[in-house]
């Protein structure tokens, strides 16, 4: 069984966890992966069971969640391994062939015998042909697929160049020729595979982090069995018709209809509405809503006709079509590049034939043009920058979902924000902390650690490095109490705390009361702005971005916030369809729109926008549509992502120009027939190294853009850990 672990923050934890697990009777092996934070357990089924193991971990302070690799992730893992194998084969082949080639080159300059040279060439062929057949597969397959689809990508000229180089070399070898291009062909493969592998490894790591977060979001539901007993099951296995039980403080795990019970639910993740709604039996509830004060029994339904989710899913599908038409920079370059190269090679052939050269000589020169122009630097130009940029984004807590997201992010000129959960923090916060007595607040926070109620969670967030009180009693629907130093400490509603009713400072504030002996206090809790929202928004405006707010919340809740941020164009009460319409309208003006949002109601807009970002706390549906997901309580990652994307794009352009300049020098030489295998090898590796070095310059530039190295993104799970404090 695989478990995703939360709370692992140091290397010592690894030792601790593995030892704890090994001590449990029946455990055969336990091994923690520190890169992905996953624990693989093997145990004997008759001696222990999963829940006992999870409990043992919980005692050590680690929350474990059963985890199953998604199909996509398995696919990525398989592909990464495959690329690594290809890379190894290409590496082996190019090293050995280079050994033989260098001998031949130096031999040609001195006194190598034709027999020895042929022997070396045949040996090279023996290594190169199987190696290219194996390691070239990623390119050949992709080239075939693109040919079938009728549009040529970068892999087509690559495959053609490699195949022609190999064929010509074999023919030359058979004719006892002086020159063979085996080393060029295999080296080309090696460079290109290195670029591909790095790209893939980055994507795999991103995917693993996203998979863990999904598991850590506590996707367990309490299903009511046939005999009425509750069974904890992963959300994924819930089917329509199942009956589930939702405790106060839990998120509703699936869409459904309430069978019995009544409660206040917070649908801010679904609609953006911040006022809580009271629901009773018969009401429709959506996955992602937070259940506040009452236990609910819910019948799971499929997303039926006419429900909001159905509407959202339909809009997402339609909106996503526009995005798929985007063509990547590299492919655009390839589209221009490939025909030019092929025409040049063909005209070189014709030119030499007309000049009266033999057919054999003319063909060799034409092929050497193809080899020298084989877009080695061109193919490395974009991925090399992308890998460095994605690495920086990863360390800054920003995960790319799409490979082409960087390029699209770089073109943005208009930013549309959702309000709830995007500009504001997803979870409510205490807003009047400074007005309360510190020691009282400290005790309240410590007491709140023992409750699962969402308001108590907000208070408990103020507790730093303290353990919960020992003997805590939770009174359902009222609050929590404990005896502290012989004095009764209570946190809960006004009646429970026998407190005076406090007049809230604004209508969207929730109140929780505190009583400690004779002292009392009222704590105000509200969804507050992300701490750096004002500064970030100001910074973005200064850089010339046009800023908008589109929120599903009431206009009167949106207006004060927009004023505070200084965003003039703010609209509230938008439905998903209206959000799309607003984005389409901006697009019609020729704007490139970035949508930043987290709710299910934002998902269609995220799909419709030119590029999109989501905080990690976003609903699954929204996250799936976002180009990148950021992991922070702050809004600054939005600015970072845009800055890095622009720098990356500038470097990509530079790299493409370097590749063009290289060709401007190399191609005339090749056409004139001066290119030998030695020159081809030197030119190819030289240009690749220049392009890679240029990409690495990004490190210096990015360091300026991310001065504080994303302090709060140290652990990918710091946010969810907070969310799940029991």
């Amino acid at each position, binding site marked *: 069984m695989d478990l995703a672990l939360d709370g692992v923050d140091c290397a010592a934890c*690894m030792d601790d966890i593995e*030892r704890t697990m090994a001590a449990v009777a029946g455990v055969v092996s336990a091994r923690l992966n520190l890169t992905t934070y996953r624990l693989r357990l093997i145990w004997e089924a008759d001696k222990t069971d999963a829940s006992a193991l999870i409990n043992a971990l919980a005692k050590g302070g680690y929350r474990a969640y059963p985890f199953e690799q998604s199909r996509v992730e398995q696919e990525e893992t398989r592909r990464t391994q495959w690329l690594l194998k290809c890379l190894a084969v290409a590496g082996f082949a190019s090293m050995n062939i280079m050994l033989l080639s260098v001998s031949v080159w130096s031999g040609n300059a001195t006194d190598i015998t034709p027999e020895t040279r042929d022997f070396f060439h045949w040996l090279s062929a023996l290594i190169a042909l199987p190696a290219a057949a194996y390691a070239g597969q990623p390119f050949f397959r992709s080239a075939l697929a693109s040919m079938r689809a009728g549009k040529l990508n970068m892999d087509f000229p690559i495959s053609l160049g490699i195949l022609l180089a190999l064929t010509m070399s074999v023919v030359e070898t058979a004719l006892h020729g002086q020159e063979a291009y085996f080393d060029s062909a295999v080296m080309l493969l090696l460079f290109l595979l290195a670029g591909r592998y790095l790209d893939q490894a980055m994507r795999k790591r991103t995917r693993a982090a996203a998979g863990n977060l999904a598991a850590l979001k506590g996707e367990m539901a309490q299903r009511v069995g046939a005999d009425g007993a509750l069974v904890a099951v992963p959300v994924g296995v819930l089917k329509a018709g199942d009956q589930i039980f939702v405790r106060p403080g839990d998120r509703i795990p699936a869409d459904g209809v309430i069978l019995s019970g009544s409660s206040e639910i917070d649908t801010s993740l679904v609609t953006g509405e911040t006022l809580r709604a009271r629901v009773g039996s018969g009401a429709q509830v959506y996955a992602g809503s937070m259940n506040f004060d009452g236990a609910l029994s819910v019948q799971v339904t499929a997303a039926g006709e006419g429900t909001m989710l159905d509407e959202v899913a339909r809009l997402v599908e339609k909106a996503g079509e526009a995005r798929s038409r985007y063509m990547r920079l590299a492919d655009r370059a390839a589209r221009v590049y490939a025909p030019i190269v092929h025409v040049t090679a063909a005209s070189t052939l014709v030119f030499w034939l007309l000049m009266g050269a033999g057919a054999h000589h003319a063909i060799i020169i034409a092929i050497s043009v193809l080899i020298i122009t084989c877009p080695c630097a061109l193919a490395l130009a974009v991925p090399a920058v992308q890998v460095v940029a994605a690495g920086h984004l990863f360390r800054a807590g920003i995960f790319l979902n799409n490979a082409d997201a960087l390029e699209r992010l770089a073109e943005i000129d208009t930013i549309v924000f959702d309000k709830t959960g995007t500009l504001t923090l997803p979870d409510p916060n205490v807003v009047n902390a400074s007005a309360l007595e510190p020691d009282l607040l400290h005790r309240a926070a410590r007491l709140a650690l023992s409750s699962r109620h969402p308001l108590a969670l907000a208070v408990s967030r103020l507790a730093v490095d303290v353990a919960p009180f020992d003997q805590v009693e939770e009174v359902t629907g009222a609050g929590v109490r404990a005896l502290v130093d012989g004095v009764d400490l209570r946190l809960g509603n006004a009646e429970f705390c026998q407190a005076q009713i406090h007049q809230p400072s604004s209508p969207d504030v929730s109140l929780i009361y505190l009583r400690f002996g004779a002292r009392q206090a009222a704590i105000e809790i509200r969804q507050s702005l992300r701490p750096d929202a004002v500064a970030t928004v100001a910074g973005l405006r200064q850089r010339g971005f046009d800023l908008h707010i589109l929120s599903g919340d009431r206009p009167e809740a949106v207006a004060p916030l927009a004023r505070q941020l200084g965003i003039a164009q703010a609209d509230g009460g938008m439905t998903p369809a209206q959000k799309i319409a607003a984005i389409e309208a901006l697009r019609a003006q020729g704007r490139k729109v970035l949508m930043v949002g987290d709710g299910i109601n934002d998902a269609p807009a995220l799909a419709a926008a030119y590029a999109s970002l989501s905080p990690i706390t976003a609903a699954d549906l929204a996250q799936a549509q976002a180009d990148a997901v950021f992991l922070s309580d702050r809004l600054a990652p939005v600015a970072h992502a845009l800055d890095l994307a622009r720098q990356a794009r500038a470097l990509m352009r530079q790299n493409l120009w370097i590749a063009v300049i290289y060709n401007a020098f190399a191609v005339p030489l090749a056409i004139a027939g001066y290119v030998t295998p030695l020159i081809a090898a030197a030119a190819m590796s030289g240009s690749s190294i220049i392009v890679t070095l240029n990409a690495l310059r990004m490190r210096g530039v990015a360091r300026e853009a991310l001065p504080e190295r994303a302090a709060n993104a140290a652990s990918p799970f710091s946010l969810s850990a907070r969310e799940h404090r029991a």
Partner: protein
Amino acid sequence: MNVLIYLVPIALALGITALFAFMWSLKNGQYEDSEGPAHRILSDEDVKK
């Protein structure tokens, strides 16, 4: 030049050995966790007292 007859095969054999060693390490899962082993070496758990 007769020395090549056995030197070249030896060179190739060495290369192939390295390639197989790499394939083995890949299959063995040594590239799945790039952080853990660095810390694992510091653990005294496997020391017999």
